[in-house]
């Protein structure tokens, strides 16, 4: 306890917070700005009150209509505050680091013993402090909602807690772009773009929650929608005060969303910190572990959402989950060349040999030999999280943690029939893992080989992308132009189809899963991808005598 109090003290004694607050609140300008803010807020509130209560004719209404009007006033006030948070929070941090870089003060900071994480945490907390100041200044207006009867104190407290966590997430996104952008305008553009996207997506999940509220139908996965929709600041007053079932435990929504947001902020800040100064492998290790945890959590949330979507009609089809997995793997594959592939040749150890191409114990370090094991770990976390989520929802008829875990352990046979395709999912899971890992392996192999052929990162990335896209898409294009797909099931046995790595996604009208999960097709395509990948890189490395030393010699020659 003493240690954590000391840590908290250290958190607030961060020099960046003191300096930022000093600069932000210094002089008459801050006083004037805050005065203008309050006047504008008051005017908006008066306008909202007039609109909600039909020009203040409360006395003419019946009590129910009056209560509804006051509730609308509460929604109006917090939607306005949500808009302010969406606009102000990203602005507080979007240029925080890029302006230090442009002002040539970043190097001075980086050469102090202050770590990048501490620097970014300071920036985040100083923006939080300023945001809280603005929210505290709005308290007289929001308290009107309680005094007039439009909301309870707990409603207002929950809405404020959501606004603060949203502001923190937006500020963290701003910091991330601030670390990567080249100039202020680029940082602002990307930050607002990302925040807008997040608000739209979480707003959509929020609309599910609201529609659920009207339908009154049970949906065990829906509270997880609430967790996501909390990230939409326009909905903080609409999201009902509820609990989220996590492994059978009921967790209050504000705690669940708080935990999720803290994890999200931490991974964003760790990634951003990697962009500042020269820091050792500790940050990379930390980032990779956090990404694994978030991937598992993401898989869990997605599967609980999809397996419990009664309001969208129909049961769950494992094909959809497979497509989601595939989409996630493709998304990661886009970054694979950058993460694991074409480093400049001199970044590889000169003695790189066949023995070093796969080293699981280096999976968490910034080492090309650990790249593929890390990808396998990532895929396992994704599927593990997904299966756990699906198992829990499928076992939801009893709803206890013990049932869920035993259901998972015993396999689909022990799980009460949910009719939502979990048994299908279990059937294809091993084959799907094999297939997706094979695609990742193929992308990695091409990227590694491109790194050996090309001297720079950019041409190597382009080469990787083009070759990977060609292998995946070319047979499909030929099949489509010759009308061989979908129309004639007999063609499924043709050689071209056999060689098409994306065949499991698109063969036939009912796809590969029309037979209840065609594991054989997934295994066959996966084996082919593994075969191709092995020839492209590991096998070539094994049969090329002295490849490492030749490369070292070439590197030495190129670097003069």
């Amino acid at each position: 306890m003493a240690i954590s109090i000391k840590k908290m003290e250290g958190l607030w004694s961060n020099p960046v917070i003191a300096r930022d607050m000093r600069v932000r609140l210094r002089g008459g300008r801050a006083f004037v700005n805050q005065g203008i803010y309050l006047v504008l807020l008051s005017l908006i509130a008066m306008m909202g009150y007039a609109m909600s209560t039909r020009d203040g004719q409360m006395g003419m209404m019946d009590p129910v209509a009056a209560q509804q009007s006051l509730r609308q006033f509460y929604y109006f006030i917090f939607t306005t505050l949500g808009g302010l948070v969406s606009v102000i929070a990203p602005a507080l941090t979007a240029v925080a680091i890029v302006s230090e870089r442009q002002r040539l003060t970043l190097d001075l900071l980086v050469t102090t013993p202050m770590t990048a994480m501490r620097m970014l945490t300071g920036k985040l907390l100083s923006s939080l402090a300023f945001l809280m100041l603005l929210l505290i200044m709005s308290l007289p207006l929001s308290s009107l909602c309680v005094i007039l009867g439009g909301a309870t104190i707990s409603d207002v407290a929950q809405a404020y807690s959501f606004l603060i966590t949203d502001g923190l997430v937006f500020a963290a996104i701003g910091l991330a772009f601030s670390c990567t952008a080249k100039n202020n305008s680029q940082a602002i553009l990307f930050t607002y773009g990302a925040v807008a996207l997040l608000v739209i997506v979480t707003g959509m999940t929020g609309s599910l929650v609201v529609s659920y509220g009207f339908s009154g139908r049970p949906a065990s996965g829906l509270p997880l929608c609430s967790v996501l929709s909390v990230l939409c600041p326009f909905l903080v007053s609409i999201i009902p005060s509820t609990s989220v079932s996590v492994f059978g435990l009921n967790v209050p929504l504000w705690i669940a969303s708080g935990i999720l947001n803290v994890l999200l902020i931490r991974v964003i800040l760790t990634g951003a910190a990697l962009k500042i100064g020269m820091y050792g492998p500790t940050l990379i290790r930390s980032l990779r572990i956090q990404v694994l945890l978030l991937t598992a959590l993401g898989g869990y949330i997605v599967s609980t959402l999809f397996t419990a979507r009664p309001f969208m009609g129909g049961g769950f089809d494992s094909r959809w989950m497979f497509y989601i997995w595939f989409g996630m793997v493709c998304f990661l594959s886009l970054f694979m060349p950058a993460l694991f592939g074409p480093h400049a040749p001199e970044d590889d150890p000169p003695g790189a040999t066949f023995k070093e191409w796969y080293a699981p114990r280096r999976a968490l370090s910034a080492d090309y030999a650990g790249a593929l094991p890390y990808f396998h770990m990532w895929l396992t976390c994704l599927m593990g999280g997904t299966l756990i989520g699906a198992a829990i929802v499928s076992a939801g008829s009893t709803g206890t943690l013990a049932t869920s875990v035993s259901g998972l352990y015993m396999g689909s046979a022990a799980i009460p029939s949910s009719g939502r395709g979990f048994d299908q999912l279990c059937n294809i899971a091993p084959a799907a893992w094999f297939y997706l890992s094979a695609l990742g392996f193929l992308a990695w192999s091409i990227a590694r080989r491109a790194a050996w052929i090309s001297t720079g990162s950019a041409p190597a990335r382009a080469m990787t992308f083009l070759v990977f896209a060609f292998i995946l898409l070319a047979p499909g294009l030929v099949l489509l132009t010759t009308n061989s797909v979908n129309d004639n099931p007999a063609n499924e046995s043709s050689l071209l189809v056999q060689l098409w790595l994306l065949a499991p996604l698109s063969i036939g009208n009912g796809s590969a899963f029309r037979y209840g999960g065609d594991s054989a097709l997934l295994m066959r395509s996966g084996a082919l991808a593994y075969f191709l990948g092995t020839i492209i890189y590991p096998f070539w490395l094994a049969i090329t005598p002295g490849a490492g030393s030749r490369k070292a010699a070439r590197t030495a020659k190129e670097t003069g």
Partner: protein
Amino acid sequence: MLELHNLRKTYGTLVAVEGTTLKLEPGDIFGFIGPNGAGKTTTIKMLATLIQPTAGAAFIDGIDVAKYPLEVRPLLGYMPDFFGLYDDIKAWEYLEFFASAYRIPKSDRASIIDSVLELTDLTEKKDAYVQSLSRGMQQRLCLAKCLVHDPKLLLLDEPASGLDPRARIDIKALIAELGRMGKTIIVSSHILPELADFCNKIGIMERGKMLVSGHVDAIVRQLQPGRRIAIRTLGPTNGLRKSLEAFEAVQTIVPDEQDECALTLDFHGDIAGEAALLKSLVDGGHDICSFHETGLDLEDVFMQITTGKVQ
């Protein structure tokens, strides 16, 4: 105090710094000389833990810079060639911010800030906003920032660039004073006379290579094995040159193109030989009005060693 072993930095095929090796002791003031693009700033940035070396190693007080950057940072003070200052912040607040970043206890900060302001002659500007300070004062404030945590090594990249003559003299005096305080200082500059006054060691870098490094005197002696003597007579030096050619120890005679009464010669002998030469010239009837040794200055050394090529 500072050791570099084959420190190397490459960007793709461009070699910014190639195998630099160096050793400095406490109190050394090392002048880092080289044309623009020679690799001076890259080397300093590697020592300042801002850039990861491609190969080789650097040790500050025995600690590996690349492996333990966080442990090295309290030992060094870094002043870049171009630096920025925060707006809306006073001089003492600027120093307090960095004192806090260097984790100096709050109770000690006020006295430390006062003493570094006094050392850099900025006490009167303690409450001034940093953007209101002159360029020279801002340079001194940045130097004061480097001193708040009492570092053992100072990395000063072009500390006097853009300063007027008075500010230049002030900052030179300050660096010399810091050297006397026992700090190891690396100063990069391409204004050579500036460094000659207070550096005891120099290193000349060109196209990423450290061409020569060591004590100033040793380098001069290495480049000029004999003694260079300047002679001035009352009349033209034609007769004097003939007399000098008879001496075996006199190697090269260079008449002054601007002044027919002056010449310089390279003399390979000791101080007694010098005295004997003067005596014989006077005895030989030459009207010698000036006879003295001249050394190579840093500009001569630089011009002799470098080729003028850039990357």
